[in-house]
Protein backbone atom coordinates (compact mmCIF):
# COMPACT_ATOMS: atom_id res chain seq x y z
CA UNK A 1 0.00 0.00 0.00
CA UNK A 2 1.44 3.39 -0.99
CA UNK A 3 0.89 6.48 1.10
CA UNK A 4 -0.05 9.61 -0.78
CA UNK A 5 1.18 12.53 1.28
CA UNK A 6 0.72 16.28 1.32
CA UNK A 7 3.69 17.33 -0.80
CA UNK A 8 6.11 20.10 0.03
CA UNK A 9 5.99 22.68 -2.73
CA UNK A 10 9.02 24.61 -1.61
CA UNK A 11 11.06 25.14 1.53
CA UNK A 12 8.63 27.72 2.81
CA UNK A 13 5.50 25.55 2.67
CA UNK A 14 4.31 24.17 5.99
CA UNK A 15 0.80 23.02 5.27
CA UNK A 16 -1.95 22.97 2.71
CA UNK A 17 -5.73 22.78 2.59
CA UNK A 18 -7.32 20.05 0.53
CA UNK A 19 -9.89 21.85 -1.59
CA UNK A 20 -11.11 18.97 -3.69
CA UNK A 21 -10.50 15.31 -4.35
CA UNK A 22 -10.57 14.56 -8.07
CA UNK A 23 -10.67 10.81 -7.42
CA UNK A 24 -12.71 8.49 -5.26
CA UNK A 25 -11.91 5.12 -3.68
CA UNK A 26 -11.75 2.45 -6.36
CA UNK A 27 -10.44 4.80 -9.06
CA UNK A 28 -7.38 3.62 -10.92
CA UNK A 29 -4.58 6.16 -11.06
CA UNK A 30 -1.30 6.28 -12.91
CA UNK A 31 1.84 8.32 -12.54
CA UNK A 32 1.25 11.97 -13.36
CA UNK A 33 -2.50 11.95 -12.82
CA UNK A 34 -3.83 14.95 -10.97
CA UNK A 35 -5.79 13.57 -8.06
CA UNK A 36 -6.33 16.53 -5.77
CA UNK A 37 -6.46 20.29 -5.61
CA UNK A 38 -4.71 21.87 -2.68
CA UNK A 39 -4.75 25.45 -1.52
CA UNK A 40 -1.39 26.72 -0.36
CA UNK A 41 0.15 30.07 0.29
CA UNK A 42 0.91 30.04 -3.42
CA UNK A 43 -2.66 29.50 -4.50
CA UNK A 44 -4.54 26.48 -5.76
CA UNK A 45 -2.21 23.72 -6.89
CA UNK A 46 -3.03 20.56 -8.82
CA UNK A 47 -1.39 17.67 -7.03
CA UNK A 48 -0.02 14.81 -9.07
CA UNK A 49 0.39 11.24 -7.99
CA UNK A 50 3.70 9.48 -8.54
CA UNK A 51 2.53 5.90 -8.16
CA UNK A 52 0.24 3.56 -9.98
CA UNK A 53 -2.60 1.65 -8.43
CA UNK A 54 -6.10 1.91 -7.11
CA UNK A 55 -7.25 4.53 -4.63
CA UNK A 56 -7.93 2.50 -1.50
CA UNK A 57 -9.00 5.18 0.89
CA UNK A 58 -9.18 8.96 1.14
CA UNK A 59 -8.04 9.87 4.65
CA UNK A 60 -8.39 13.62 4.54
CA UNK A 61 -11.69 15.36 4.01
CA UNK A 62 -12.13 18.27 1.67
CA UNK A 63 -11.43 21.64 3.27
CA UNK A 64 -9.13 20.03 5.82
CA UNK A 65 -5.82 21.78 6.44
CA UNK A 66 -2.94 19.43 7.12
CA UNK A 67 0.84 19.77 7.56
CA UNK A 68 3.26 18.76 4.83
CA UNK A 69 3.90 15.01 4.98
CA UNK A 70 0.46 14.08 6.29
CA UNK A 71 -0.85 10.93 4.65
CA UNK A 72 -3.85 12.04 2.58
CA UNK A 73 -4.78 8.84 0.81
CA UNK A 74 -3.77 5.22 0.47
CA UNK A 75 -3.13 3.73 -2.94
CA UNK A 76 -3.10 -0.02 -3.43
CA UNK A 77 -0.59 -1.36 -5.94
CA UNK A 78 -1.99 -3.32 -8.86
CA UNK A 79 -1.39 -6.66 -7.14
CA UNK A 80 -2.76 -5.70 -3.77
CA UNK A 81 -6.23 -6.58 -2.63
CA UNK A 82 -7.93 -3.68 -0.94
CA UNK A 83 -9.11 -4.45 2.54
CA UNK A 84 -10.99 -2.03 4.62
CA UNK A 85 -8.29 -0.19 6.45
CA UNK A 86 -8.23 1.05 9.94
CA UNK A 87 -7.45 4.69 10.39
CA UNK A 88 -3.78 5.45 11.03
CA UNK A 89 -2.78 5.00 14.64
CA UNK A 90 -1.85 8.65 15.00
CA UNK A 91 -5.34 9.75 14.17
CA UNK A 92 -6.90 7.26 16.53
CA UNK A 93 -4.77 8.51 19.36
CA UNK A 94 -5.63 12.12 18.67
CA UNK A 95 -9.29 11.29 18.53
CA UNK A 96 -9.29 9.62 21.88
CA UNK A 97 -6.92 11.88 23.73
CA UNK A 98 -7.36 15.35 22.30
CA UNK A 99 -10.28 17.11 23.83
CA UNK A 100 -12.65 18.46 21.27
CA UNK A 101 -11.85 22.07 20.67
CA UNK A 102 -14.54 24.53 19.85
CA UNK A 103 -13.03 26.99 17.43
CA UNK A 104 -14.60 30.31 16.66
CA UNK A 105 -13.39 32.24 13.65
CA UNK A 106 -13.14 35.59 15.35
CA UNK A 107 -14.61 38.49 13.49
CA UNK A 108 -16.11 36.44 10.69
CA UNK A 109 -19.67 35.79 11.69
CA UNK A 110 -21.69 32.93 10.28
CA UNK A 111 -18.63 31.16 8.97
CA UNK A 112 -18.67 27.41 9.47
CA UNK A 113 -16.07 26.27 11.99
CA UNK A 114 -13.01 24.49 10.66
CA UNK A 115 -13.58 20.79 11.12
CA UNK A 116 -10.02 19.67 11.87
CA UNK A 117 -8.92 19.12 15.44
CA UNK A 118 -6.12 21.25 16.73
CA UNK A 119 -3.16 19.39 18.11
CA UNK A 120 -1.55 21.43 20.82
CA UNK A 121 0.31 20.54 23.97
CA UNK A 122 -1.60 21.12 27.21
CA UNK A 123 0.89 23.82 28.16
CA UNK A 124 0.47 25.53 24.78
CA UNK A 125 -3.30 25.49 25.29
CA UNK A 126 -2.99 26.96 28.75
CA UNK A 127 -0.69 29.79 27.62
CA UNK A 128 -2.84 30.47 24.56
CA UNK A 129 -5.96 30.67 26.71
CA UNK A 130 -4.22 33.01 29.19
CA UNK A 131 -2.94 35.32 26.45
CA UNK A 132 -6.00 35.16 24.22
CA UNK A 133 -4.15 33.55 21.33
CA UNK A 134 -6.22 31.81 18.67
CA UNK A 135 -4.65 28.37 18.17
CA UNK A 136 -6.31 27.96 14.76
CA UNK A 137 -3.92 30.57 13.44
CA UNK A 138 -0.78 28.85 14.62
CA UNK A 139 1.11 26.32 12.56
CA UNK A 140 2.59 23.80 14.97
CA UNK A 141 6.24 22.85 14.69
CA UNK A 142 5.91 19.59 16.62
CA UNK A 143 5.24 16.05 15.56
CA UNK A 144 2.21 15.89 13.29
CA UNK A 145 1.92 19.67 13.41
CA UNK A 146 1.40 19.80 17.16
CA UNK A 147 1.54 23.28 18.64
CA UNK A 148 4.11 23.70 21.41
CA UNK A 149 4.72 26.33 24.03
CA UNK A 150 7.39 27.83 21.79
CA UNK A 151 4.95 28.12 18.87
CA UNK A 152 2.49 29.99 21.05
CA UNK A 153 5.20 32.27 22.40
CA UNK A 154 6.22 33.08 18.83
CA UNK A 155 2.61 33.83 17.98
CA UNK A 156 2.39 36.22 20.92
CA UNK A 157 5.40 38.08 19.58
CA UNK A 158 3.95 38.14 16.08
CA UNK A 159 0.55 39.24 17.28
CA UNK A 160 1.49 42.81 16.53
CA UNK A 161 1.89 41.95 12.86
CA UNK A 162 -0.45 39.04 12.28
CA UNK A 163 -0.51 37.08 9.07
CA UNK A 164 -3.56 38.16 7.19
CA UNK A 165 -5.86 35.80 5.42
CA UNK A 166 -8.56 34.18 7.46
CA UNK A 167 -9.06 30.72 6.14
CA UNK A 168 -12.63 30.78 5.09
CA UNK A 169 -13.64 27.22 4.55
CA UNK A 170 -16.98 26.27 3.21
CA UNK A 171 -18.34 22.79 3.06
CA UNK A 172 -21.74 23.92 1.93
CA UNK A 173 -23.48 23.45 -1.39
CA UNK A 174 -21.39 23.10 -4.53
CA UNK A 175 -22.40 26.48 -5.91
CA UNK A 176 -21.12 28.15 -2.78
CA UNK A 177 -17.83 26.40 -3.14
CA UNK A 178 -16.75 28.40 -6.13
CA UNK A 179 -17.29 31.48 -4.07
CA UNK A 180 -15.16 30.21 -1.25
CA UNK A 181 -12.30 29.52 -3.63
CA UNK A 182 -12.56 33.05 -4.94
CA UNK A 183 -12.30 34.38 -1.43
CA UNK A 184 -9.26 32.24 -0.83
CA UNK A 185 -7.57 33.50 -3.93
CA UNK A 186 -8.10 37.01 -2.72
CA UNK A 187 -6.56 36.13 0.57
CA UNK A 188 -3.65 34.33 -0.99
CA UNK A 189 -2.26 37.45 -2.65
CA UNK A 190 -1.22 38.47 0.77
CA UNK A 191 -0.06 35.01 1.70
CA UNK A 192 2.05 34.85 -1.45
CA UNK A 193 3.65 38.08 -0.27
CA UNK A 194 4.37 36.41 3.07
CA UNK A 195 5.76 33.32 1.38
CA UNK A 196 8.10 35.41 -0.75
CA UNK A 197 9.08 37.38 2.33
CA UNK A 198 9.88 34.22 4.28
CA UNK A 199 11.89 32.58 1.51
CA UNK A 200 13.87 35.70 0.67
CA UNK A 201 14.60 36.54 4.31
CA UNK A 202 15.89 33.02 4.83
CA UNK A 203 18.01 33.33 1.71
CA UNK A 204 19.54 36.65 2.64
CA UNK A 205 20.09 35.52 6.21
CA UNK A 206 21.71 32.20 5.48
CA UNK A 207 23.29 32.35 2.03
CA UNK A 208 26.52 34.25 1.46
CA UNK A 209 25.81 35.55 -2.03
CA UNK A 210 28.45 36.61 -4.53
CA UNK A 211 27.52 38.56 -7.63
CA UNK A 212 28.95 38.59 -11.16
CA UNK A 213 27.87 40.46 -14.21
CA UNK A 214 28.74 40.45 -17.88
CA UNK A 215 27.51 42.22 -21.00
CA UNK A 216 26.61 40.24 -24.09
CA UNK A 217 26.31 41.66 -27.58
CA UNK A 218 22.92 40.33 -28.65
CA UNK A 219 22.93 41.57 -32.26
CA UNK A 220 23.61 38.09 -33.68
CA UNK A 221 21.09 36.45 -31.40
CA UNK A 222 18.37 38.99 -32.14
CA UNK A 223 19.02 38.85 -35.88
CA UNK A 224 18.78 35.08 -35.74
CA UNK A 225 15.56 35.39 -33.76
CA UNK A 226 14.05 37.92 -36.16
CA UNK A 227 14.85 35.57 -38.99
CA UNK A 228 13.44 32.58 -37.17
CA UNK A 229 10.25 34.44 -36.31
CA UNK A 230 9.64 35.30 -39.92
CA UNK A 231 9.25 31.59 -40.60
CA UNK A 232 6.81 31.19 -37.74
CA UNK A 233 3.19 32.14 -37.35
CA UNK A 234 2.45 34.80 -34.80
CA UNK A 235 1.46 32.19 -32.23
CA UNK A 236 4.75 30.33 -32.65
CA UNK A 237 6.80 33.50 -32.35
CA UNK A 238 9.78 33.29 -30.02
CA UNK A 239 10.81 35.72 -27.30
CA UNK A 240 14.50 36.50 -26.72
CA UNK A 241 14.30 34.99 -23.24
CA UNK A 242 13.82 31.55 -24.80
CA UNK A 243 17.26 31.72 -26.40
CA UNK A 244 18.73 32.87 -23.12
CA UNK A 245 17.06 30.01 -21.21
CA UNK A 246 18.45 27.53 -23.69
CA UNK A 247 21.94 29.03 -23.44
CA UNK A 248 21.77 28.92 -19.64
CA UNK A 249 20.63 25.28 -19.66
CA UNK A 250 23.53 24.30 -21.91
CA UNK A 251 25.97 26.16 -19.68
CA UNK A 252 24.50 24.42 -16.61
CA UNK A 253 25.36 21.06 -18.17
CA UNK A 254 28.98 22.18 -18.08
CA UNK A 255 28.77 23.53 -14.53
CA UNK A 256 26.77 21.04 -12.45
CA UNK A 257 27.90 22.78 -9.23
CA UNK A 258 25.48 25.57 -10.06
CA UNK A 259 22.61 23.18 -10.77
CA UNK A 260 22.55 21.91 -7.21
CA UNK A 261 21.00 22.15 -3.80
CA UNK A 262 22.87 23.15 -0.66
CA UNK A 263 21.73 21.00 2.25
CA UNK A 264 24.50 19.66 4.48
CA UNK A 265 26.85 20.06 1.56
CA UNK A 266 26.50 20.30 -2.18
CA UNK A 267 24.02 17.96 -3.84
CA UNK A 268 24.14 17.86 -7.61
CA UNK A 269 20.77 17.66 -9.34
CA UNK A 270 20.64 15.47 -12.39
CA UNK A 271 17.75 17.18 -14.18
CA UNK A 272 18.14 20.79 -15.23
CA UNK A 273 14.79 22.24 -14.21
CA UNK A 274 14.84 25.99 -14.54
CA UNK A 275 12.51 27.91 -12.29
CA UNK A 276 11.24 30.89 -14.25
CA UNK A 277 10.20 33.84 -12.14
CA UNK A 278 6.77 35.14 -13.07
CA UNK A 279 5.61 38.25 -11.33
CA UNK A 280 1.93 38.38 -10.61
CA UNK A 281 0.00 41.45 -11.58
CA UNK A 282 -1.38 41.62 -8.05
CA UNK A 283 2.13 41.50 -6.57
CA UNK A 284 4.25 38.59 -5.49
CA UNK A 285 5.92 35.88 -7.53
CA UNK A 286 5.41 32.37 -8.79
CA UNK A 287 8.41 30.30 -9.85
CA UNK A 288 7.21 27.37 -11.94
CA UNK A 289 9.87 24.97 -13.20
CA UNK A 290 10.48 24.19 -16.85
CA UNK A 291 11.70 20.62 -16.71
CA UNK A 292 14.83 19.34 -18.48
CA UNK A 293 15.37 22.59 -20.36
CA UNK A 294 18.65 21.31 -21.83
CA UNK A 295 16.74 18.57 -23.68
CA UNK A 296 14.08 20.92 -25.09
CA UNK A 297 14.23 22.65 -28.45
CA UNK A 298 13.80 26.41 -28.66
CA UNK A 299 10.19 25.95 -29.76
CA UNK A 300 9.49 23.52 -26.97
CA UNK A 301 10.79 26.02 -24.44
CA UNK A 302 8.50 28.69 -25.90
CA UNK A 303 5.59 26.26 -25.71
CA UNK A 304 6.43 25.62 -22.07
CA UNK A 305 6.34 29.35 -21.38
CA UNK A 306 3.02 29.64 -23.20
CA UNK A 307 1.74 26.87 -20.98
CA UNK A 308 3.02 27.93 -17.58
CA UNK A 309 2.78 31.71 -17.68
CA UNK A 310 -1.02 31.90 -17.95
CA UNK A 311 -1.40 29.09 -15.42
CA UNK A 312 0.98 30.79 -13.00
CA UNK A 313 -0.98 34.02 -13.33
CA UNK A 314 -4.19 32.09 -12.67
CA UNK A 315 -2.44 30.31 -9.77
CA UNK A 316 -3.12 26.96 -11.36
CA UNK A 317 0.21 25.18 -11.22
CA UNK A 318 1.06 21.57 -10.67
CA UNK A 319 2.90 20.42 -7.58
CA UNK A 320 5.90 19.20 -9.57
CA UNK A 321 6.23 22.58 -11.21
CA UNK A 322 6.49 24.35 -7.88
CA UNK A 323 8.84 22.01 -6.10
CA UNK A 324 11.33 20.68 -8.59
CA UNK A 325 13.30 23.62 -9.95
CA UNK A 326 17.06 23.34 -9.59
CA UNK A 327 18.15 26.80 -10.79
CA UNK A 328 16.24 30.05 -11.14
CA UNK A 329 16.12 32.66 -13.87
CA UNK A 330 14.59 36.05 -13.31
CA UNK A 331 14.02 38.08 -16.45
CA UNK A 332 12.84 41.67 -16.53
CA UNK A 333 11.75 41.64 -20.17
CA UNK A 334 11.89 44.58 -22.55
CA UNK A 335 11.87 48.23 -21.63
CA UNK A 336 12.89 47.76 -18.06
CA UNK A 337 15.97 48.16 -15.90
CA UNK A 338 19.14 46.91 -17.58
CA UNK A 339 20.47 44.90 -14.69
CA UNK A 340 18.94 42.68 -12.03
CA UNK A 341 20.74 40.87 -9.22
CA UNK A 342 18.62 37.99 -7.97
CA UNK A 343 18.25 36.60 -4.48
CA UNK A 344 18.82 32.82 -4.43
CA UNK A 345 15.78 30.63 -3.81
CA UNK A 346 16.98 28.07 -1.26
CA UNK A 347 17.97 25.27 -1.32
CA UNK A 348 19.18 26.20 -4.81
CA UNK A 349 22.64 27.70 -5.09
CA UNK A 350 22.36 30.22 -7.91
CA UNK A 351 20.04 32.53 -9.81
CA UNK A 352 20.65 34.27 -13.13
CA UNK A 353 19.32 37.79 -13.67
CA UNK A 354 18.35 38.84 -17.19
CA UNK A 355 18.05 42.59 -17.68
CA UNK A 356 16.36 44.43 -20.51
CA UNK A 357 18.21 44.30 -23.80
CA UNK A 358 19.13 47.92 -24.52
CA UNK A 359 21.13 49.73 -27.19
CA UNK A 360 24.50 50.64 -25.81
CA UNK A 361 27.78 52.04 -27.05
CA UNK A 362 29.96 49.06 -27.81
CA UNK A 363 33.70 49.13 -28.31
CA UNK A 364 35.11 46.33 -30.39
CA UNK A 365 38.29 46.00 -32.45
CA UNK A 366 39.17 49.60 -31.66
CA UNK A 367 35.88 50.85 -33.05
CA UNK A 368 32.76 52.19 -31.41
CA UNK A 369 29.37 50.91 -32.48
CA UNK A 370 25.83 50.75 -31.14
CA UNK A 371 24.67 47.25 -30.26
CA UNK A 372 21.74 45.64 -28.47
CA UNK A 373 23.33 44.60 -25.20
CA UNK A 374 22.17 42.16 -22.56
CA UNK A 375 23.38 42.60 -18.99
CA UNK A 376 23.30 39.16 -17.43
CA UNK A 377 24.13 38.57 -13.78
CA UNK A 378 24.72 35.56 -11.62
CA UNK A 379 24.05 35.53 -7.89
CA UNK A 380 25.54 32.39 -6.44
CA UNK A 381 26.02 30.77 -3.06
CA UNK A 382 29.62 31.14 -1.95
CA UNK A 383 29.32 28.04 0.21
CA UNK A 384 28.68 26.01 -2.94
CA UNK A 385 30.92 27.63 -5.53
CA UNK A 386 33.56 30.33 -5.94
CA UNK A 387 33.60 33.30 -8.27
CA UNK A 388 35.78 31.48 -10.76
CA UNK A 389 33.07 28.87 -11.40
CA UNK A 390 30.40 31.53 -11.66
CA UNK A 391 32.49 33.54 -14.07
CA UNK A 392 33.23 30.56 -16.32
CA UNK A 393 29.50 29.80 -16.32
CA UNK A 394 28.63 33.31 -17.52
CA UNK A 395 31.30 33.08 -20.22
CA UNK A 396 29.74 29.84 -21.40
CA UNK A 397 26.31 31.49 -21.59
CA UNK A 398 27.91 34.31 -23.58
CA UNK A 399 29.58 31.84 -25.94
CA UNK A 400 26.24 30.18 -26.74
CA UNK A 401 24.41 33.48 -27.26
CA UNK A 402 27.12 34.61 -29.66
CA UNK A 403 26.45 31.50 -31.73
CA UNK A 404 22.66 31.42 -31.75
CA UNK A 405 22.54 28.86 -34.52
CA UNK A 406 24.21 26.39 -32.16
CA UNK A 407 21.21 26.54 -29.89
Amino acid at each position, binding site marked *: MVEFKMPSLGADMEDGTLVEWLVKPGDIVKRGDIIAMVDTQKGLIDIEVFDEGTIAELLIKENEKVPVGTVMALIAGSNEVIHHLEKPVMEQVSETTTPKEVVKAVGIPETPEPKHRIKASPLARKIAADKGIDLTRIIGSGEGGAISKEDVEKAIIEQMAPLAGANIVSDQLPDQKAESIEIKKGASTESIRMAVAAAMSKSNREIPHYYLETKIDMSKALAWL*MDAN*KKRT*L*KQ*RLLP*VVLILKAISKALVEFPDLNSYWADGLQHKEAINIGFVISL*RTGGLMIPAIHNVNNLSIDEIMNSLNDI*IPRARAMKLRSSELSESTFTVTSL*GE*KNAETVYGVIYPPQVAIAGIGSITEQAWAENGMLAVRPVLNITLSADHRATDGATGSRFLMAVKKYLLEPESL
Partner: protein
Amino acid sequence: MTELEIKQIIFKLLKQIAPDSEPESLMPDDLIRQKLEIDSYDALQFVIALDEHFGIQTPEEDYGKIETLKNLTTYIQDKQFK
Protein backbone atom coordinates in the same frame (compact mmCIF):
# COMPACT_ATOMS: atom_id res chain seq x y z
CA MET B 1 -15.11 50.15 -38.21
CA THR B 2 -15.05 53.49 -36.46
CA GLU B 3 -12.20 54.71 -34.35
CA LEU B 4 -14.42 54.38 -31.31
CA GLU B 5 -15.27 50.77 -32.09
CA ILE B 6 -11.60 49.93 -32.57
CA LYS B 7 -10.79 51.55 -29.23
CA GLN B 8 -13.56 49.56 -27.53
CA ILE B 9 -12.07 46.31 -28.84
CA ILE B 10 -8.55 47.34 -27.85
CA PHE B 11 -9.77 48.09 -24.33
CA LYS B 12 -11.53 44.74 -24.16
CA LEU B 13 -8.42 42.84 -25.29
CA LEU B 14 -6.19 44.74 -22.89
CA LYS B 15 -8.60 44.01 -20.08
CA GLN B 16 -8.39 40.30 -20.86
CA ILE B 17 -4.62 40.34 -20.70
CA ALA B 18 -4.35 42.62 -17.69
CA PRO B 19 -7.60 42.11 -15.81
CA ASP B 20 -6.84 44.54 -13.02
CA SER B 21 -5.71 47.42 -15.27
CA GLU B 22 -7.83 50.33 -16.47
CA PRO B 23 -7.28 50.68 -20.23
CA GLU B 24 -10.00 53.37 -20.37
CA SER B 25 -7.65 55.67 -18.45
CA LEU B 26 -5.11 55.63 -21.30
CA MET B 27 -4.42 59.00 -22.91
CA PRO B 28 -3.85 58.93 -26.68
CA ASP B 29 -0.08 59.40 -26.35
CA ASP B 30 0.54 57.18 -23.29
CA LEU B 31 2.86 54.25 -23.86
CA ILE B 32 0.43 51.37 -23.42
CA ARG B 33 2.86 48.80 -22.03
CA GLN B 34 4.38 51.21 -19.58
CA LYS B 35 1.11 52.64 -18.31
CA LEU B 36 -0.59 49.28 -17.89
CA GLU B 37 2.56 47.44 -16.79
CA ILE B 38 2.42 44.84 -19.52
CA ASP B 39 5.48 42.62 -19.79
CA SER B 40 6.94 41.23 -22.99
CA TYR B 41 5.08 37.95 -22.76
CA ASP B 42 1.72 39.69 -22.33
CA ALA B 43 2.62 42.11 -25.09
CA LEU B 44 3.03 39.14 -27.42
CA GLN B 45 -0.35 37.79 -26.31
CA PHE B 46 -1.85 41.21 -27.00
CA VAL B 47 -0.47 41.25 -30.55
CA ILE B 48 -1.82 37.73 -31.11
CA ALA B 49 -5.24 38.89 -29.90
CA LEU B 50 -5.14 42.00 -32.11
CA ASP B 51 -4.31 39.91 -35.17
CA GLU B 52 -7.12 37.48 -34.45
CA HIS B 53 -9.74 40.13 -33.82
CA PHE B 54 -8.94 42.53 -36.60
CA GLY B 55 -7.74 39.92 -39.11
CA ILE B 56 -4.43 41.70 -39.58
CA GLN B 57 -0.80 40.58 -39.44
CA THR B 58 1.65 42.43 -37.27
CA PRO B 59 5.29 41.62 -38.09
CA GLU B 60 7.89 42.12 -35.43
CA GLU B 61 9.42 45.16 -37.13
CA ASP B 62 6.08 46.99 -36.71
CA TYR B 63 6.07 46.71 -32.92
CA GLY B 64 7.42 50.27 -32.72
CA LYS B 65 4.32 51.52 -34.56
CA ILE B 66 1.80 50.32 -31.99
CA GLU B 67 3.17 51.70 -28.75
CA THR B 68 0.48 54.27 -28.00
CA LEU B 69 -3.29 54.17 -28.25
CA LYS B 70 -3.24 56.77 -31.04
CA ASN B 71 -0.54 54.91 -33.05
CA LEU B 72 -2.23 51.59 -32.56
CA THR B 73 -5.66 52.83 -33.65
CA THR B 74 -4.18 54.39 -36.77
CA TYR B 75 -2.14 51.25 -37.49
CA ILE B 76 -5.23 49.03 -37.30
CA GLN B 77 -7.29 51.39 -39.43
CA ASP B 78 -4.54 51.51 -42.09
CA LYS B 79 -4.18 47.72 -42.12
CA GLN B 80 -7.91 47.11 -42.28
CA PHE B 81 -8.67 49.51 -45.10
CA LYS B 82 -5.70 48.48 -47.20
